[in-house]
């Protein structure tokens, strides 16, 4: 059995066509997308927003405000200036969350500190600032936009302004929550864990605000490429069955005349095809993950599980196709067509295909469910976007059912040994 496994691996690896489709093509595609999005990312990347901050006694006294600003500015919160336990852990949490999204060191604000509101207005009039922030005597931050910019129809500017407003809003809500807590349940406030839970909140907001749209677009493409390359691994299953099955090739006929049961030789054959597929997509995954730094929500082990299951689906699907009694020559092309068509609905081909895929997912969910490429894509997507694993588990279950169905089909097709004609 091991010998069969070994030779199957050799035969598959030495087949240049298969290797080209399975390994090179997805890598090329990913590289293409990467160079495309590298341009996109720089165009859309938010430069730090130039704002003026009035650094008076109100500013210093507003709890947790100066660390927030420091955080947004990407400078480490100066130790000791305003270091309550809560704000310190905020900074810590931010670091952990955003590190994944390569937002560490990416500043949202480029603050210029002035002593009082008058100086701020003067600076606003003179310089190129979006607005200024001043903390009132009740510890509430107010944001004054440059009137010229406020009326601007420039969407990018509007986005920038709203990002700042958002951040301040969030701060206000949290500090009011804290204040409320202090009145109703002061005990709770002294509990360090409550504080850190609460103060983890602003962190989430920042993360959302900073990495919102452009990167997620890119992620969609890379997840789609990965899903596509998983399903392309059909070609390994297909080639393996090509020289295994008696009515497909002279080699298959010869193999089936040997002194081994069909299951004895089928098992190592499929195993070889599957393992090779898995290695190929893992190479692709590592390439996307570590060469291009594309995030998978920090859940790499779960990603490997997805890859293993989806290549199993692909191998079995390829085996089923390989066993189908239609002329052998065109099968490689047919697998490529199948993979490409299914990938439309995973959004591989840009915004239109993404919209179509999403539309189908929302309105014809059954179609999405039976599309392995979409399911694989969804698996990565759910790993990245959801903290919990429910959606992920659902996708995995779907893929497992697919694998089981293809397995049964494959076995039904393979156990047949006598044919009406060869």
């Amino acid at each position, binding site marked *: 059995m091991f010998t069969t496994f070994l030779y199957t691996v050799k035969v598959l690896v030495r087949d240049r066509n298969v290797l080209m489709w399975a390994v090179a093509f997805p890598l090329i595609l990913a590289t293409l997308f990467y160079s495309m999005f590298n341009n996109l990312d720089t165009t859309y990347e938010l430069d730090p927003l130039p704002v003026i901050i009035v650094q008076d006694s109100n500013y210093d006294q507003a709890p947790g405000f100066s660390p927030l600003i420091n955080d947004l500015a990407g400078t480490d919160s100066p130790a000791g200036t305003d270091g309550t336990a809560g704000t310190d852990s905020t900074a810590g949490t931010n670091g952990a969350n955003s590190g994944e999204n390569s937002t560490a060191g990416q500043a949202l604000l480029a603050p210029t500190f002035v002593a009082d509101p008058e100086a701020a207005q003067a600076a606003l009039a003179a310089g190129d600032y979006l607005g200024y922030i001043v903390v009132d005597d009740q510890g509430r931050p107010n944001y004054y936009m440059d009137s010229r910019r406020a009326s601007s129809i420039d969407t990018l500017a509007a986005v920038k302004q709203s990002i700042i407003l958002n951040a301040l809003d969030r701060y206000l809500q949290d500090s009011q929550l804290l204040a409320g807590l202090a009145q109703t349940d002061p005990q709770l406030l002294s509990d360090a864990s409550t504080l850190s839970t609460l103060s983890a909140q602003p962190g989430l907001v920042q993360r959302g605000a900073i990495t919102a749209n452009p990167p997620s677009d890119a992620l969609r493409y890379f997840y789609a490429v990965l899903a596509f390359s998983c399903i392309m691994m059909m070609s390994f299953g297909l080639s393996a069955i090509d020289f295994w099955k008696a009515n497909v090739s002279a080699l298959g*006929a010869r193999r089936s*005349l040997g*002194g081994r049961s069909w299951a004895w*030789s089928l098992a190592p054959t499929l195993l070889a095809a599957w393992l090779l597929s898995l290695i190929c997509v893992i190479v692709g995954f590592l390439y996307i993950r570590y060469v291009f730094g594309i995030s998978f929500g920090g859940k790499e082990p779960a990603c490997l599980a997805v890859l293993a299951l989806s290549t199993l689906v692909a191998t079995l699907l390829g085996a089923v196709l390989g066993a189908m009694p239609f002329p052998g020559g065109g099968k490689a092309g047919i697998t490529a067509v199948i993979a490409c068509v299914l990938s439309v609905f995973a959004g591989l081909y840009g915004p239109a295909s993404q919209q179509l895929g999403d539309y189908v997912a929302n309105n014809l969910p059954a179609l999405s469910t039976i599309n392995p490429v979409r399911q694989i894509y969804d698996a990565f997507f759910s790993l990245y976007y959801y903290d919990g694993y429910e959606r992920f588990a659902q996708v995995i279950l779907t893929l497992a059912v697919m694998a089981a169905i293809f397995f049964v089909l494959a076995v039904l097709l393979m156990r047949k040994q006598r044919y*009406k004609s060869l």
Partner: protein
Amino acid sequence: MDIIEVKDLVKRYRELVAVDNFSLAIKPGEIFGLLGPNGSGKTTVINCILQLLTYDRGEICLFGEPMSPSRYDLKRRIGIVPQNIAVFSQLNVAENIDYFCSLYVDDRARRRALVDEAIEFVGLEDYRRFRPRKLSGGLIRRLNIACGIVHQPELIIFDEPTVAVDPQSRNAILEGIQRLNERGSTVIYTSHYMQEVEQICTRIMIMDHGQALATGTNSELKALVGINERMEIELAELGEPGGADGSGGPDGTAGLGGPDRAGEADGFMRPGDKSAAALRLVRALPHVATAQLEGSLLRVTCSAGAHNLSDILGALQKAGILYGRVFSEPPTLNDVFLEITGKELRD
């Protein structure tokens, strides 16, 4: 016990009856030849025996036991060299042979010895690490054979192993098959080349249109047609018997008659008369079964008799007919095939 026993096998491809009430029994130690023209159903019979094809009727026993697709114990005792080359283009010579050996033999050390032996047997020692595409047609055929015989089975089936092979490789293959037989394997050999079958087979079955037409040893088959000897004699200076156009003869014998030619043609006896006389003379001889004149070529078959050729040549000389080259050969399987089917079995 028969190694193979096939009874009343019928196999249809839709309307086409490819194997028609075919029966066969092969004894241990034989080199059994299955001779038939292309499309006569040889491969189909083999594939039915090996349970690759379903069949409509018939019983097949191997080694005395009924054969079925899952009789792996029986399959293990058979080696098959298929008609179409079936080796991996991605594996080299040694790997190919080892792969097929592994379908029968688990033990690695034993396999290595068997592979070496098979490589040596087919003479591919210098090509162990060659991939098939670097081998010539004859060498690939040898690899194809090595893959089928490597596990040293009791029964080896060769399906047209010499198609498209140069004469040198062909002889090597035929000798190899005889050596395998001497080593103890029973052999089935299918071919549409009668010389090969005659050369190596201990028993021969002639088949056509899926039917077994005749079975027996080489001489048994030839006894069937009652021919002992066939001769071809090139006659000089002859025309068609009774033919108006005398130029047919001289054309066919150009260069034979030499300077005499013009004189003879102008002689008092017309060429047509001369040939008719020759035919008459030859046909009158005691053992001559048939005599025909094709152009200047006289074809004669004889049933029995010790000195037919000298009798015939003597008769020609008496009639004053010059002759050129003379061929004499014992009857061939083609004569047998011709006798049974009324058509030629041509290589």
